């Protein structure tokens, strides 16, 4: 799981083999980034600036947020040079 070979120096208390902690940060979101595939020019700016690095490449044509962890900060939408990302209130998606 880990590519870190220095773990061998750590004590028996080391958790290096355990699964990592993970918070349901997707639950924090009040707005969701929605990508317009037609407008997207596949430049990757949304991906590099996303603090959580959850903008995932989709079959070499566009990017899409992993909504399990996206915190809805809106950086991707702001930084997209083509305005291809819209932040839409989560309320819209409640059925």
């Amino acid at each position: 799981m880990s590519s870190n070979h220095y773990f061998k120096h750590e004590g028996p208390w080391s958790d290096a083999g355990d699964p990592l902690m993970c918070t349901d940060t997707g639950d924090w979101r009040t707005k969701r980034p929605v990508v317009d595939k037609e407008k997207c020019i596949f430049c990757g700016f949304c991906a590099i600036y996303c603090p959580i690095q959850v903008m995932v490449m989709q079959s070499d044509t566009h990017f899409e947020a992993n909504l399990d962890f996206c915190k809805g900060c809106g950086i991707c939408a702001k930084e997209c040079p083509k305005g291809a990302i819209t932040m839409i209130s989560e309320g819209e998606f409640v059925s």
Partner: protein
Amino acid sequence: MAEKKQGRLTKVLDYLKHDDPFSKGVAFCPGCGLELLLRFIPRVLGNDIVITGTPSCSAPVLLGQNNQSWHTLSYFGTLMTGAAANATGLVRYYRKAGIDNTVVCFNGDGTANDIGFGNLSGAAERNEPFIYICYDNEGYMNTGIQKSGTTPFGATTTTTPYGTVHRGKNLRRMNLGLKMAMNKIPYTATATLSDLEDLAKKLLKAKEAKERGFCFLHVFAPCPTGWGADPADTIEICRRAVKSNYFPLWEAENGRIRMTKTVKKPKPVDTYTKLMKKFNHMTEADMKILQDDVEYEYCLLGGLSVLEAECQLPVSVKDQGEAS
């Protein structure tokens, strides 16, 4: 069609050669500059770096909780008063044990500029071979947004409030990057998150330069929560900080300053300050003080970069120290 699209991908992705060692859901506020920086460093430098740092906003994630972890890097948590001393111990141990690796001492501005400055200064004097990275969110964020030495003039924090008596911080911001460059260490640089290619290059340069000794990176990393900014503006804030010369990007090898980005027509500093609530109350006169200070610092930097090129740093003062 797909191929045509591929050609336009940003070059920054080429620098992200390694995996992200962090779990996806970690406890940083939405839009936190620190989170982007923290994920970026091991993706550029590799996952075999050893990080050491102090109590701060980075610590809950780097240190983990109880005996569980948020990431797969090696991390050594230490005290605010001794971050660089701790890193010194680590590099010396690794050298004795014959392990070739990179130690990154990663701290907030409160540790680097204030509480842990003494031993940072000492590590620079002794030219200890590790990389010290200070993420500058201009205050003690983790304990509730208190002012630090790098909090700028006018900014409100919980210890420099705005009210009938006080109008935000009434002292100048200290220039931590320049202070470190003046120690003539092998490599000093400033960087920020709007220019990630520049940041990646500087990280790689630091990794190379640490073979010759101490390296210091001062990274401007906005804190939307503490600054009262829209989380979506984090990158725009960095960009405007650079474009107004509020946070100029430069590097210095052995103290020789070189601008890595020159802004042709610097924007007024209020183009930057208006994105945050912490500057909301500032009057025109206050803004003039901040503007003059920004211009003074920039002028000084420019002057030093010319002077350093003209004057000769006596060679090997440091090399002799190493040899003895």
